């Protein structure tokens, strides 16, 4: 079985996000970029399935500008067999991403598509679901446990009421939650090995995907700053201050 893994590059979770002064976006120049943490979990799960002998090939997929290659090499260093790089300099919205994946799915015929449940940059949480709908295959989102047997995926999901277990017939789309696994550390020799693994480069325009943006971003703004507090001398003053504000 072949597994396709969505592997998006985002601003690293340790970076303090700064909104551009003109409000048109967040600063990404000179900012550390890394794999979306949920996608790392998806890749780890795919690698574990391969190690168990369930999967035979793990392919990481990235959509983005020419310099995305370095990011895909990290996925290869982690253990993916090969990578597909869909080259575009434009920002890609979830529906466009899902349509792009559909084209790749048609070509690659994977038994399973693993994706992060959401990317930590836009937090859209849509691409996996949209892909399943377009592909007309089952979806199992927010997986915290995944078992594959007899052509079916048994997926445990964390829901409000506790744990929900569902079965999905393969091929299917599974999106990963935080507790599914802990991604492995990359080893130095594997970085060297990754240099000789293949990356297929496909021009976005050549896929014939309709790239119509359904969402318009009007403005980015940083959360409002907390206003300065008032120092009180003692409990009595605190009570008086709270009363004055109508809070007591």
């Amino acid at each position, binding site marked *: 079985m072949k597994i396709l893994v969505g592997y998006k590059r985002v601003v690293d979770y*340790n970076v303090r996000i700064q909104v551009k002064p003109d409000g048109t976006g967040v600063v990404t120049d000179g900012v550390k970029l890394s794999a979306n943490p949920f996608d790392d979990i998806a890749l780890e799960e795919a690698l574990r399935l391969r190690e168990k002998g369930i999967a035979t090939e793990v392919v990481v997929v990235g959509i983005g500008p020419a310099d995305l290659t370095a990011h895909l090499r990290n996925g290869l260093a982690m253990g993916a067999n090969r990578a597909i790089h869909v080259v575009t300099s434009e920002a890609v919205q979830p529906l466009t991403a899902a349509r792009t994946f559909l084209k790749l799915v048609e070509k690659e015929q994977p038994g399973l598509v693993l994706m992060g449940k959401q990317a930590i940059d836009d937090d859209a949480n849509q691409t996996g679901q949209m892909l399943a709908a377009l592909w007309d295959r089952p979806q199992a989102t927010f997986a915290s446990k995944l078992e594959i047997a007899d052509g079916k995926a048994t997926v445990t999901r964390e829901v409000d009421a506790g744990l929900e277990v569902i079965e999905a017939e393969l091929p299917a789309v599974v999106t990963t939650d935080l507790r599914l696994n802990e991604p492995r550390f990359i080893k130095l020799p594997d970085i060297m090995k990754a240099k000789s693994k293949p990356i297929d480069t496909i021009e976005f325009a050549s896929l014939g995907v309709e790239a119509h943006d359904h969402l318009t971003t009007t403005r980015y703004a940083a959360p409002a700053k907390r206003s300065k507090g008032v120092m009180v001398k003692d409990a009595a003053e605190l009570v008086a201050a709270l009363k004055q504000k109508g809070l007591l």
Partner: protein
Amino acid sequence: MSERETMEYDVVVVGAGPAGLSFAIRLKQLQPDTSVCVIEKASTIGAQILSGAVIEPQPLDALLPGWRDHPPPICVPAADDEFWLLSKTGGRKLPVPPGMNNHGNFIVSLGAMCAWLAPQAEALGVDVFPGFAAADTIYNEDGSVAGVRIGDMGVAKDGSHKSGYTQGIDIRAKVTVLAEGARGSLTKQLIKRFRLDADSDPQGYSIGIKELWQVPAGRVTPGKIVHSVGWPADSRTYGGSFLYHLDGDRIALGYVSGLDYTDPNYQPWEAFQQWKNHPMVKPLLEGGSILSGGARAIVTGGYQSLPKVEMPGALLIGDTAGLLNVPKIKGTHQAIRSGMLAAEHLVAHDLKPAGFDAKLRGSEVMAELKKVRNIKPGFKKGLWFGMVNAAWETAVGGASPWTLKNKADWSMLHKLGQQEEPKRDYVQRELPPRDRLAAVYFAATEHDEDQPVHLQIADTSVCVTKCAEEYGNPCTRFCPANVYEIVDDEAGKRLQINAANCVHCKTCDIKDPYQIINWVTPEGGSGPNYQNL
């Protein structure tokens, strides 16, 4: 346990700073078929590099002719220089000392510059590996350095192996080049093992604390460079500020405190924050926001403290050797030069380190240090003596027949009550950050909490007894990241080490008066994630 994996290179470089990257670039330029890798503990290149930074471009011109056509992302030509003596409420403009004349220089972010250098090294075939800490050196049977051991990943706080445990590999090389920056942890071991400092004075250091600010439009004059001495330092403490106007309404600013200070109650971080509230600085920053911030040690011992820079199988370059020029407050040009010299030496001598020490000492790198060797030590006698002495040394071009001695910074600390504490004329601070914990947030420092503490203290029993009595636990004050705290709970008073806050500045390793703190590398990729510092 399985056999440890090994990779082999002709040359392994520890540290992807200006020295290490320049070395690797030069080596590949001269001898493209030499295999070289650069190991960097930061998760990404430049994330643990912090400097002012005004740089002299000549060494860069020699290394990468044509770099000016595609400069690093932050690169502002130096314009006006100003030098001020501050009082609490005002200041007096002094003539700019010749060493601090920056005509022809550039204000850069050294972090961004290293991130710009690394791909150029990679294009020449250098393997650059960020996120891997060189935790130890390995040795050949004849005792020579054989390479480095990468730290294990996935070790729990108690030393047990977590589920993702990954053993670090050994990188074996014909020669190991240490370019770790000031107070490198492997360099420290090697200096001891090979007695590299047998003929030199103890090394000296300062701590530099820096912030990058985004300020409201209209306040910045790109290229303007302002340095100050005086307030908030008392006349016995070596301290001074830098303030560089960048483009894009950004200002890089910081405060440097000599770690040879004597008062155990001195707090370098507080001095920096005080200075920001000076009436000449505060109006520039008010209403702005901090983009990034952090701290690092600066090596200041210079000429008389330079250890031997070669040993069997290895050599030292850049700040870890100790090549910074204090009066110029610049080390980058020296780092690049020494990296290039080392590459040229190794290529000419079949990758043998022997002879590099003599080569470096005979070069302009050392000539520059010799000229200014008496300037920093003069400040031990206070600001006024220091300035007069500096003027003299500058006038005679360092031709004084004497060389002033350096003493170890940790030995300078007075015991509580041993001297009259200087009166610190501090103000009520209004600019952020409020305290050190709030400041650490801007360093974006990250360590997995479940890993062995990377600040090893040989004997913590002295903390609440001897040290509390003698020095009042200066670690709780000199650390800019609030790593050290004395807590008082059911178990009584004890030292708590908040290792996850550490910004890797090494101040504790340098200044602890008992010399029992040993800074070692945490798990690779841990530590600050500086942006454009």
